[in-house]
């Protein structure tokens, strides 16, 4: 495939977005019946489902901790979620991302409330178009909230990229593949904590500062969407006629 033009002559991106514009974000909460909590998060064509089971007891008791719950997390891609079929065996990328996603949600979960239990977070990438780990973090934190797990804040995530020399928000797969840098960031905005930060690419210190600023701006918008979705799910009192 030929390298597409990532920044058009009019300064817009290959899909018509402004550099600081998110893809359409959609959030649905409580989409599953049997899970303690669940959320479906879409960043454009990227579609990620998260389910939480627990806090619960598990047979692998040696893993449990006496002073808090453990969090177990699996980031997993469906075999048909990508252009080329993904082998169902766990890849090195999935193993790393399971850790990265767990460590992104762990700082906000009040695990000390449930000692000797496990909180299981399953993330399923249904369709991948860039930004699956960031959508995964947003979905996981909403599923935890939906499960009623006490949390210090929600975590939302978004990636900033450098494409064609321009810093852009919420990069998709094309921009990730042909761009110069990809920097996923997860934030707990109300407590001012960054819980995931990766950089794949080369940036100067100044570029990094700006990229971080852009990511925090995008995260604030996603945070609003996430809170709105939670309010829609739980704050509206349904009156039966």
């Amino acid at each position: 495939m030929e390298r597409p033009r990532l920044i058009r002559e009019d300064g817009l991106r290959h899909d018509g977005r402004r550099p600081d514009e998110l893809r359409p974000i959609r959030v649905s909460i409580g989409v599953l019946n049997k899970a303690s909590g669940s959320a479906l998060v879409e960043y454009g064509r990227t579609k990620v489902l998260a389910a939480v089971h627990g806090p619960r007891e598990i047979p692998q008791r040696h893993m449990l901790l006496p002073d808090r719950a453990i969090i177990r997390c699996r980031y997993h891609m469906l075999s048909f979620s990508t252009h080329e079929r993904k082998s169902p065996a766990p890849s090195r990328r999935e193993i790393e991302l399971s850790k990265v996603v767990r460590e992104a949600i762990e700082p906000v979960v009040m695990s000390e409330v449930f000692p000797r239990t496990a909180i299981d977070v399953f993330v399923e990438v249904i369709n991948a178009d860039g930004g699956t780990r960031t959508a995964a973090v947003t979905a996981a934190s909403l599923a935890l909230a939906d499960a009623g797990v006490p949390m210090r804040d929600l975590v939302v995530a978004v990636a900033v990229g450098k494409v064609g020399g321009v810093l852009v928000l919420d990069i998709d797969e094309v921009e990730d593949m042909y761009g110069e840098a990809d920097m996923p960031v997860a934030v707990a905005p109300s407590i001012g904590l960054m819980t995931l930060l990766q950089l794949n690419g080369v940036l100067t210190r100044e570029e990094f500062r700006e990229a971080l600023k852009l990511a925090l701006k995008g995260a604030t918008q996603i945070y609003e969407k996430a809170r709105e979705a939670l309010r829609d799910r739980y704050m509206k009192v349904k009156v039966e006629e």
Partner: protein
Amino acid sequence: MSHTPSPAVITPRLKANTIANMLKRGVRSSGRTLTDYRPTDIVVGYVQNADGSALVRLGNTVVVAGVKLEVGSPYPDAPSEGALVVNAEFMPTASPTFEPGPPDENAIELARVIDRALRELKVVDMSKLAIVPGRKVWVVYVDIYVLDHDGNLVDASSIATLTALLNTTLPKVEVDELGNVRVDRSVRVSPLPINNKVVTVTVARTENVLFVDPDLDEESVVETKLVIAVSDDGRIAGIQKSGSGGLAEAEVLAALDIALKTGVNLIKTVESKVSEAASGHSTSTLN
């Protein structure tokens, strides 16, 4: 599935509290300042049968990295470029908590962080590694073995990797009329083509204190680490937050400044060790 780790080595609470309280006052159990890096001892070309290798001692952490070059097929999307494969193993020799078996998530993360930094900065010049363009190229295997674990395995591994790559030489190859490639490892024709240099610098956070290069005792009280890949020209070539905590924006920027300063110096250390070894003989051994 990734799960919250149990404390790997149980550090007595009294000791952990002491380390944490000292850090809060800006003092470290080892006597180092917050921005002091442990002394790094580098043995260039430690493994004679490797195409390039290095043994790195970072304090009491010991890592050996080796490069093996193999003739392989190129990737279809880059037919005239070589390929790079990075793998890391935490050996059972390094810690009573390391088990034999396939790499766990920590070893995979370590290898992938170093792999990304090498790739993004184009440390190895892949365009010069074609043997028969489109058919045969050099595949550069970097294998990292952690032999002794006293904290900050990522940095020790990245220093060992850079040194091993700088120590790597290409063997002589002959291509016959049928396109078959014969490698003669007894004759070395040129050094592995290198564009840029990179190492990682790990900055740890406990309470609200940032400090560089945590040792194993310190890691027992560290919640969050920021691994920052630094290039020889002082750019950021990769970042990975690791651990189950978070960082404020100001802390990230402060960590970056520590890393950039430390990283550029580390690369200079590696360079001088490599040129020293090229001109004379490196005599250090594991002990």
